[in-house]
């Protein structure tokens, strides 16, 4: 990690409108996001099952897990987009679960969110999409480029320049490629001047090359601006190359929380393998994470067994 990060962070936090309790300390251990025993149920399904997580300022944490393991739901709790059925979420020193109205919007404006599907308005210009990131700082609705102030427009253009898309400012968002759209979305998030950046599968809809670009950009910006990043991914390789720390989720529980340094792909796979309780879960991991020699060999046996088991009752009926 960049040694200057903490100082940058401190200045940044001090200039922010709401100062957090610990923001003045330059010590490395300030907690920015804390989730304590979060449980979230949607009807009969349990999306999160007592998940806990602590993220310190400047960390880049990658959430790893299969689809449906609760990564998105966890991220949405950090931004107050979901309310937990049980548990406590504290972000930037504020208890998110207790916030409503203006206070909640204020918190959200300090937390940037990047979506898998970019979520730009396709019919608006790139610039106006970026400008929507500043809505929390103005009062009332805005419609059209000129309803935002000149200063805001200049800032938005600067953000676009940062992500390398200044030239595209006045194009419709849907004329851009997927990777470019995600970069616009990053510019929009930066427009909020966030302290925390959440990214929900930011590269799942992109080709490998754009994926690398986008991940590099997120990492770079995080370092420059001293952002704390929580990013969900499902590719182990990407997670290993971009994260400071990997947090594995399964069925809404945190099953792995370890620094990336010195961690190998095989080890991650092994951890996944060990916690897999049933065969089909294991196979699902295989499918999703890609087959490594180690886990692949192990997976073959139960598959055959499962196949045999499936046939047997049929035969019995006949």
């Amino acid at each position, binding site marked *: 990690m960049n040694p200057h990060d903490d100082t940058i962070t401190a200045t940044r936090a001090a200039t922010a409108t709401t100062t957090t309790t610990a923001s003045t300390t330059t010590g490395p251990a300030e907690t920015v996001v804390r989730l304590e025993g979060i449980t979230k149920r949607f009807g009969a399904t349990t999306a999160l099952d007592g998940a806990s997580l602590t993220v310190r300022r400047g960390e880049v944490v990658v959430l790893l897990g299969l689809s449906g393991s609760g990564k998105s739901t966890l991220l949405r709790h950090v*931004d107050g*987009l979901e309310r937990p059925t049980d548990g406590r979420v504290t972000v930037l020193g504020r208890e998110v679960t207790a916030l409503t109205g203006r206070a909640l*919007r*204020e*918190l*959200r*404006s*300090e*937390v*940037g*969110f990047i*979506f898998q*599907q*970019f*979520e*730009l*308005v*396709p*019919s*608006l210009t790139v610039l106006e999409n970026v400008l*929507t*990131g500043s*809505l*929390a700082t103005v009062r*009332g*609705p*805005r*419609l059209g*480029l000129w309803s935002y102030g*000149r200063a805001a*427009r*200049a800032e938005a*253009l*600067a953000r676009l*320049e940062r*992500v*390398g*898309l*200044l*030239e595209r*400012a*006045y*194009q*419709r968002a849907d*004329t*851009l*490629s997927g*990777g*470019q759209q995600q*970069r616009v*979305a990053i510019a*929009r*998030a930066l*427009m*909020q001047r966030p302290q925390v950046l959440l990214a929900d599968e930011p590269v799942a809809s992109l080709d490998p090359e754009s994926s690398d*670009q986008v991940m590099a*950009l997120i990492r770079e910006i995080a370092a420059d601006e001293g952002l704390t990043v929580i990013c969900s991914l499902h590719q182990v390789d990407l997670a290993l190359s971009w994260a400071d720390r990997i947090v594995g989720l399964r069925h809404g529980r945190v099953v792995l929380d370890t620094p990336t340094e010195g961690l190998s792909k095989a080890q991650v796979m092994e951890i996944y393998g060990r916690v897999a309780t049933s065969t089909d879960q294991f196979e699902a991991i295989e499918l999703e994470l890609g087959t490594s020699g180690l886990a692949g060999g192990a997976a073959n046996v139960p598959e055959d067994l499962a196949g045999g088991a499936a046939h047997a009752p049929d035969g019995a009926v006949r």
Partner: protein
Amino acid sequence: MSIVTERPRTTEVVVAPVAAPPRRRVSPERVAAGLTLVALLIASVVALRSVDIDPARMLQSWSNAERFFGRVGAIEFPPLGELLQLTALTLGLVICGTLLAAVLSVPVAVLAASNTSPGPVWRAAARFVTVLARAVPDVVLAMVFVLLFSLGTLPGILAIGLHSVGMISKLFADAIEQIDEGPRTAVRAAGGTRLQQFTAGVLPQVLPSWVATVLHRNDINLRGSVILGYVGVVGLGMEMSFAFKSLDYGLGLGYAVVIFVLCVVMEIVSSSVRAVMLGTAPTGRGLGDRIVRRATRRRGAATSAAPAPEAVGRASTAATSADDATRASGTAATSADDATRASGTPAPETAAATVATMLRRPWDRARVRTTTWAAVAAAVVVASIVVCDIAWSELVTVWSGVPAVAVQFWPPSFGSYEMSTMVDAMGETVAIALAATLLTLVASIVIGSLAARNVAPSRGVRGGMRLLLVGIRGVPEVILAIVLIVVTGLGTQAGTLALALGGVGLLGKLLADSFEEVSSGPERALAATGATRLQVYAGATLPQGTRALIGHTFYMLDTNIRAATLLGIVGAGGVGYYLLNASQGSNYGTVTAIVLMILVTVLAVEGLAMWMRRVFR
């Protein structure tokens, strides 16, 4: 080939004893809906017999028509100046009314849409407003407003404005419900308020569809304005009604021709505007498409807002690929150059744009185009308001007159009429609607199928059918009815045929669009097995389109019931005749009674239609 056909057969022998497949479970609701469908079909056939459409007699009366047209002599037109003024007045009135409806519809739609409504109570209230506005015919509203206001455009504007809220707010709400929630969530995640979420996340997404809805409704209102003339709303319709009432048939038909041309022109203009706005220029080679395309191209050249939508699409694709090649962090300037070259605009003087230079939005084609459109739209709106010469003060003074008028409308009574006469008349109206819907359905399946790109045997056929549909849609039903009354004489026949013919324009188009929207996979699969064109149609296209067909047909029935009540006003049978009589005889209690009767019927059919569409979705 023979080997291939052989093999499945042997396999079949091997696996021969297959257990019977489990029976598909059909919910009782579906059974009930199916039975209702059959019952309605039978009722329609019975209705068709009861409105006694008799081709022989029609042929006989054709000589009547000939004699009539002989007597009419040449079609006359009013002096050009007067004609232009009346046309402007009619257009202005209709546009103002539609705009009023659009403005009123926004809050109603926001409250009615499930994803923006603050709560179920608000939703129910908004839906009630929608249904009520739709159920009260604009003619009835106009009758009331003509009583309240002095002669002028206000009664027409208000009648159109209030009645159109029903359809517009419904379609607005549908559009809101169909948005991609993502951008809205993004604004929410960035800390936006509910209002900001709406303006930044919802509005830009629904705007094209909203504008299309308003344009579409404007066409409908223009056709409807004819009948408004019969109850005293100024404009071409009123002049036409005067001409016919004073037996000046030549002049009356002259007005009818003018209105018809006006409706067709508006239809073409609005459809081309919609096409340009939605970024999809019609690509067909049909005459209708060609007219639209040529119109858009010419307009583009005139305003120097050049690009046809396809050109924009191509340019942006080129831009994207060029940029992808040069990579993100690399030389963005080169890619921009490529992009501008591809789209045909001169390259910017400074290759490397900076934040400062980019602060000013360049006058590129997109900007010129949107600005031009906005200016034209604003000009049209302003011109409409000016032309209407609205007596604003009356909006305030009118309230003092309301109690006096309200008293006249209450209590409802059938006055001098027998209850049974009224119920029979209403029954006749329903019969007209049912019979007309059946006729429309049969004709529309044929014409609509042939107008669908994936069914039509050739582009020529498709183009011809599409043109036919546009032509039919352009004719106001009232004018159809008036002409048909001349041919068939007063009565239910004329009304039924007018509705049936007019309906083909709408249902045929809806069906053609639905057929074009079906998934092409099954069609290709069938074609690949060597099926004939007709087999592909019957085996893949029609089954996939059935749900849309049922839905659209019920929509048609819904519309026809409303329209059938009104056609009586021009003498085409049903309850409308009594409505006009009562209103002209100042028996307002009777008007109320008849309107309530219509309301109940319309709501019943609407409920039925909603249920059917839900079950067969």
